[in-house]
Structures are given as C-alpha cells and as structure tokens.
C-alpha cells in the first residue's frame, strides 16, 4: 500500500469516503511521517499526537454514523497565528509563548464545521514578518528540497509541511506574499484570496488592510476544495464582502483556449535569477502553445510597491502589535519601576529584531510631521497601483509572473540584509496592495533541484478564473 501520508486532500477525502482507510489510520500515518521528518524540517511548532488521534477517532465515529461533512477526518495544519480554541497560538513570538487561544477564528470554526482535524501548529516568521521563516523566535524551518535552504516565509512551516509530506494541506496567511513565496520555494500550491474573500476574524493581525488567509496544498484542485470551505462573508469581519462562494472545484475544467494571459513588462526585467525567468517564460510559452493568447500589459507603478508596502504594513503593524505590552497580553517584564517601564521592558524582551524594526518604522511613518510625506503618500500610491491592475484586467483575463526573483536561498544568506530581503517581495506585494487574488504553483526547477513557482494573478473575486487557469496549466505539466 502507498504511503497514505503523501496523499492529496482530494485523494485523502476519496479514500476516507470509500473506507479504504480510517481517519485514525490517515492521521497516524501523518504523525509517523512528522516523527520521522520533522527533526530535520522543523515545520511544526507544536504537534500533539494524542489530540490529533482523538479528533480522528471522533470523526471516524461520525462517519460511521452517516456524517459526510466535506472535510471529515482530514488533518489540516494551521499557521501559528490562527486562533483555534484551546490550542496554543504563539505567532512564533516570545510574546505569546504561553498563550492559548480563547476562541475560534472564523476559518477555524469553518474547518471545525467541515469536520477537519486540527493537525498541528506550523512555524512562521514572528508575527508573519519575514520572507524566510528565519524570524521565528523558536526554530528555523528547512526547505524539504534542500535542508540548507530556507522554506520562504512567512508561512514557511505550512509550505515545508505540505511539500515535505508532513501535511495533507495547510492554512497560511499572506500579507505581502507570505503564502505564495514559500509555496514557490517549497514547490507546492499556495493561494492568496482577494481581500474580503476570507474572514480575518481570529487571525492575529499583522497588517489589517493586507492580510488574507489562504490554502497551501499539493494541487490546484486541493486549493479549490479548501478555499470553498474558508471563503465567505463573516458578520465578525466588516471587511468581508457578501459575495456568493462558487463551487471552485466544479469549475476546474477546460484548457487554455481563448484565455488571454497578460505579461506585465515590469515583472520581466533584469535582476531576477535567469533560471527563474526561464522557467516562468517557458510556462507562458506552453500556455501559448496550448491555445492561450499572450498580451503585453504594463503596471507602471510597480516600482513603488515595495516602498508603499513597507510603509503601510508597518504603520498598521505598529498599532496592531501595541497590545503586546505586558499588561494583558504578551511577555511581562520581571520588575518594572513604572507602567512606562513595564511597557518598554516587556516589549524590548518579548519582540524579536525584525518585529522591532517594523514597529519602529511604522511608528515613524505615522509620526506628527512625517505622516503626509510617508503614510499619506503611500496611500495615494496604493490607489495608483490598484488602478494599474484594474486597467490591466481590461486587456487580459489573468496575469502570469514569477513569484519571487530567486529560488530558495541558503539559510542565513539574506537575513543579514533586511533591504535585500524586502526586495524579494517585489512580485507578490502588489496583489495585496491591490486587493486582488493570486496563486503560486510549481512550474519547474533549477539545475540545483530547487522549485520555481509561477504566479497567476486575477482581479478581485476572480478566484474561479485563476484556479481554472492554474488547473489547466497543472494538467499540462503533468501530461
């Protein structure tokens, strides 16, 4: 019998339905796989076999009783900033090392409702700030394709778990590329839904106007299955939109014929790793060969995206992370001399370097006398970037671009140079700024055996379209 731990989400659901194996067997296989591999990968911050198998046994009983909930019995790994009642939710930070969630995030409640098993807490950059998962306060996750390389970030734990056979599927969050980039580095599928498509309630906030939860899976079909469960209006999140959730999986049909694919020229410039550019252009070529029309488009304000992102995201973060002050939340300093001292010491001791850097940056850009020059200007530029995409989607159905200028790099290689690390987000942050959707899926490898990702971007609430395109491409690849 094949190792059921390596199954896709669709495959696992099928096997459970056909009673080829039980949820306990499936989850046991995953636990065994984690036991075997995670010593190297370090994808999980916390994984409790007893808790997992208890949920699995319950779901087997439910199935025996006729329950056929959509995700019944399938383990889903959870990025460690999504609150699941009773589970730890450290955000990979010392601040919340001992914090247990007191309520379910909406996405957690939805998974619970669909019968999923909460499989474990995956590692991440502290408070989702980073692109390599090296900013975790607790451990460094490794890339399953090369243990010396980073898995990308900030959802590096989820990506490594899915790609490394330690998870059937996982949840990640994407503020500036944190789902798509690690999916690209690790060679799995990662999708950032449009802003407002998935509830943020219960997801510890990094940058509220940019954060989105999304699926990280082995296949496009799996992403479609999981997104359907996560998406939808939430009365607890005023920024979700009341737009009907389509049956994404049912629309995974058709090929490339008649599809208009836009190539934004600003995304195909020197500076990217040639192996990445070649792999992506080869993917585009194969789409053309399969009947798609390729059109050139321009997103003229792309060059401002990184600066805009690091102003707006850090500004929002500086407020979102203020509550970790040692009074009600966060690490509390031992013997402060005053309330001010309590704040200062607790925050100095509790936050890591990158988080402090971003809080300081965000505080600065909002400060009196600087607001107009930084935050105010960045908001205007954001509007221009959004308009770029609206115009581009008048000319094409989807955009195809690289996910990251480079494949996975060596651990420690970029972490000494924050600016270089920030520039690596150039192809992913615009989608967050524009509020549109995007998906990353594998389109080849470097000579060194590292995966290269293809990014497909669609207009806001165009998830159906990019999933369909991605599925067609995936089928061509497999063929």
């Amino acid at each position: 019998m094949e190792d059921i731990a390596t199954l896709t989400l669709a495959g696992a659901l099928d096997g459970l339905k056909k009673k080829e194996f039980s949820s306990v067997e499936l989850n046991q296989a995953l636990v065994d796989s984690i036991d075997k591999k995670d010593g190297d990968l370090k994808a999980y911050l916390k994984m409790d076999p007893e808790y997992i198998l208890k949920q699995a046994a319950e779901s087997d009983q439910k199935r025996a009783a006729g329950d056929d909930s959509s995700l019944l019995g399938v383990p889903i790994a959870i990025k460690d900033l999504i609150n699941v009642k009773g589970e730890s939710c450290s955000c990979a930070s010392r601040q919340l090392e001992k914090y247990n969630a007191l309520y379910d995030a909406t996405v957690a409640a939805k998974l619970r409702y669909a019968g999923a098993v909460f499989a474990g807490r995956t590692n991440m950059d502290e408070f989702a700030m980073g692109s390599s998962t090296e900013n975790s306060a607790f451990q460094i996750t490794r890339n399953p394709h090369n243990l010396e390389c980073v898995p990308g970030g900030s959802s590096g734990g989820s990506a490594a778990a899915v790609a490394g056979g330690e998870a059937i599927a996982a949840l990640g969050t994407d503020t500036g590329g944190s789902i798509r980039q690690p999916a690209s580095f690790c060679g799995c599928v990662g999708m950032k839904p449009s802003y407002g498509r998935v509830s943020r309630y219960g997801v510890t906030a990094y940058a509220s106007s940019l954060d989105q939860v999304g699926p990280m899976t082995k296949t496009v079909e799996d992403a479609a299955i999981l997104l359907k469960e996560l998406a939808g209006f939430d009365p607890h999140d005023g920024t979700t939109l009341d737009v009907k959730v389509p049956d994404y999986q049912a629309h995974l049909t058709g090929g490339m014929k008649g599809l208009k694919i836009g190539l934004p020229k600003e995304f195909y410039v020197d500076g990217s790793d040639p192996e990445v550019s070649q792999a992506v252009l080869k993917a585009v070529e194969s789409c053309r060969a399969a009947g798609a029309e390729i059109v050139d488009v321009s997103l003229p304000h792309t060059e401002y995206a990184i600066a805009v992102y690091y102003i707006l995201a850090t500004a929002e973060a500086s407020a979102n992370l203020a509550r970790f002050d040692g009074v009600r939340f966060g690490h509390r300093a031992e013997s402060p001399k005053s309330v001010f001292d309590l704040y200062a010491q607790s925050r100095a001791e509790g936050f890591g370097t990158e988080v402090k850097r971003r809080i300081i940056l965000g505080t600065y850009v909002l400060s009196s006398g600087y607001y107009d020059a930084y935050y105010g200007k960045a908001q205007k530029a954001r509007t221009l970037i959004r308009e770029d995409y609206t115009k581009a989607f008048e000319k094409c159905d989807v955009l195809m671009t690289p996910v990251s200028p480079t494949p996975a790099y060596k651990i420690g290689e970029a972490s000494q140079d924050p600016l270089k690390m920030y520039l690596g987000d150039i192809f992913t942050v615009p989608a967050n700024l524009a509020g549109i959707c995007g998906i990353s899926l594998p389109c080849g490898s470097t000579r060194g055996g590292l995966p290269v990702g293809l990014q497909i971007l669609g207009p806001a609430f165009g998830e159906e379209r990019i999933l369909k395109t991605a599925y067609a491409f995936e089928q061509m690849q497999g063929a």
Partner: protein
Amino acid sequence: MSKYLITIGLETHVHLKTHTKMFCGCATEFGSEANTHVCPVCLGYPGALPVMNGEAIKQCVIAGLMLGCEINHYSTFDRKNYFYPDMCKDYQITQMEKPLCIGGGVTIDTPEGSRRVRIHHIHQEEDAGKIIHYARHSGVDFNRCGTPLMEIVSEPDLSSPDEAMAYLHNLRQILVYAGVSECNLEEGNMRSDVNISVRPEGQEELGIRAEIKNMNTFKGIYAALEYEIERQLYIVKKGGTITQETRRWDADLGETQSMRTKENAHDYRYFPEPDLVPVTLDKEMVEQWRAALPELPAARRERMVKEYGIPEYDAGVLADEKPNADFFEIAAKLCGEFKTLSNWFMTDVMCLLSESGKTITQCSLTPKSLAELVTLVKKGVINGPTAKELLPELFNDGLMPAKMVEERGLAQVSDSGALESFMNEVFEANEKSVADYLAGKKAAAGYLTGQVMKLSRGKADPKLVNKMIAEKFAGMGG
C-alpha cells in the same frame, strides 16, 4: 489696569443609550460586577475585529440633527494610538478625518441676551475601561471599555464659567430630549474636557490655553474654571506667560494641577482604521430620521402652555427635565386637571425628589398614581391634607391611592348627619368659643372647624364643615 477676556471651549463626551457596545455585542449596563460584560473584541484579544454598531451611528446622527449639525454621509474611523492600561488594544477607535457631524450649535441665555454657541463637530468613538487604584496595586474594569461615546467639540465661544454651565445644561437637555443619552453625571455618562485661555481686551489672537481633562460634574467644571481663570489671570497680570499644557482638576484640594506640557504631549499617530469600512449614510434615511426628530425643549414649553393652559413658568419648570415633562403629560391626560396637577408636581413631588435625590424615573410614583390622587381630591373623595399624607407612600412604595383610601377608610365624611352630630358635640364642649363668636370674634369659627375635623379624624370635608358652622351660627343669630 487693562481688562481681560476669557475664552472657553468644551469637549464633551457623552455615552449613547445603546444596549450593546460600539464594536461588539457586550451589554453597556452600568454597575455590574467588574469585567463581566467583556468579550474577545472589547478586550482586544489577538485576532478579534470590531464590528460597527448601527444603532450607535443612528443615535449620534440624531444628536447631530437635534443640534443643527450637517451630517457627513460618508464618514470614516481612525485609530488613535497611545499606551494606557485601561485600553487593551493600546489604541482607541475614533473619528478624526471625517466625523459624522459637522457644525451646529447650542443656544444659551446670557445677561446680554440669547446667543448661539457653535459646535465644531461631533465624532463617534469607544470609551476606555476604568482603572481602580488599591493600596499597593491597581486594577482595571473593562465593562465600560468599548461603550459608544460621542464627543461634542464646541468652538471657543464661551466667555465665563456661567456661560459654560448654560451651554452644558442646554446641551444635556437637548441630548436627553433626543433620547440618545441618559446624560447621567453620576454614572459618568457625560464628561467634559475644557480648554481655557485669557487675553487682554483688544488683543485679537487667543491667549495660550490650558486643557483640563475629564470632569464629570457640572459643579466640578464650574469650580475648575473659576480656579483656572484666576490662576491664569494671576500669571498674566504679573507679566508671566501661560504654559500650554494639560491639567487635571483635584476636587479635594480645589485646584488644577499640571499633567503634561506641550513638549510631552502625546503624538497620537492617527491613521485610518483598516478593520472598519467607511460608514455611508443613505440621504433618504437621514431625512426620515430628521422628520421623526423629537421636540426640542423650547418647542415643548410652548406646546405645553398651549395644550394645557398652564403658566409659562410651570411649563419651563416641567420641561427642564424631559422625564418630568413626559410624566406630567401622561398624568395630565389621565386626570384632566392640568393646573392642579402642575401644582402638585412642582411643589410636593419635586420636594420629595430633592429630598430623596431620586429622579422621577427612579422613584415609585407613576403618572397613573398621581393622576388618581389628584382625581380623588377633585371628586371630593379625600381632602387635600389627606392626599398630602398619602403621597410619600405613592412615591416610595408605589401604592395606588384609591386602594389605600378604601382599605384605610380615609374617604371624606360628607354625610351631613354624621357631621351634624360632630358639630353639636363640639358646640357643647366649647361653649366659650361659641360665645366668643357670637360676641363678634369671628376667628373662633376656625377653631370650631378644627375641632370638628379632629373628631372626624381628618376625614370631614372642611368646606362643608365651614358651611354648616356658618349656617348654625346664622340660625343662632350670630
């Protein structure tokens, strides 16, 4: 010595009368056990998000309409960042860029005539928790955290503590009339920050101001203003300069004290609240709200004079507090005795209110029980003194007068046979008074009436007794 002008502006925070908090479903109830009306949202748990309370928005807009403001049909919320233990998020959700209401004003009476005090704007925000200090530590009660507040910011149009009082009194009256707040000062429903400066007459530019924070009694505000004016005048008259600063009022010491100077002022780093989408108000809906606005106090006074034929003075006293006017109008419709009712309310009832420190809604007197009492007197079932004796029990215990009269046998004795025998008894026992009367001392009749009342244990109809005694004397040739 030159004269000085005083300039005062107020920022008044008013709790709205919603059942739930500004951004979550927790109750806004006052006086519950600490930290019982809390949830992940108002406690700022990681990941929790605010959700707009539409009723609070409506109430704020209604307040704005009552105060003559322009309503912003597109309004946004902002985050105000500062660290303080009474706010778990360490930022307050408020409105800075586009508040709900702009302009408007409150008319006040001054010795120089009536004047409009302009309002700069009204914005909506959430309240913070309450810090309680103990001997060796402090605690926070988060029940109040997230309660809907509106902040009414006046222009610096006031020039004396008396004017500030008139403004606050009229503002409070309008908000209570609007039905958007209880404006209960003891419960901290209405708190004000005052900005105050002085300048020599003839100087255009306003003087440097000091802000006194967070006062919740009118008396305290008045005293703080008086103190602060004196302090500032003392400094400028000596040739000194006022420091721009935030001060606090210490009611025990009766003085204002410096909290922080301009150099140490907070930089609140306002920015748009990304968790809330802008509030868009449908024009038609706002017009519907405008059409359904309750009467303003002045209009009510006028109407009460017309409708009930009571004197302007009475209408003014009754309409001063909306609950009193509401009470009067319900009772008036039940008993139809408008002036009598007004007299009862303005004297006996108000006396009980002030003695007990209660409001008309807190005491047990109901419009029905007072109307019944007035009717019983009117019909001659009981006399005035009996009614006055019953009132405290209506007020304190919620008893109904008709039932009391019946159970206690308090009905007036109007049966002339019974009165006749009381009278004969009194005449026999008081021969001297009878003789006095017959000798011309007419005052003796009053004494005799009193004696008859006494015999009847207060239940005799005094008018009837007077009449019968007069007739008896007439028969005796007196």
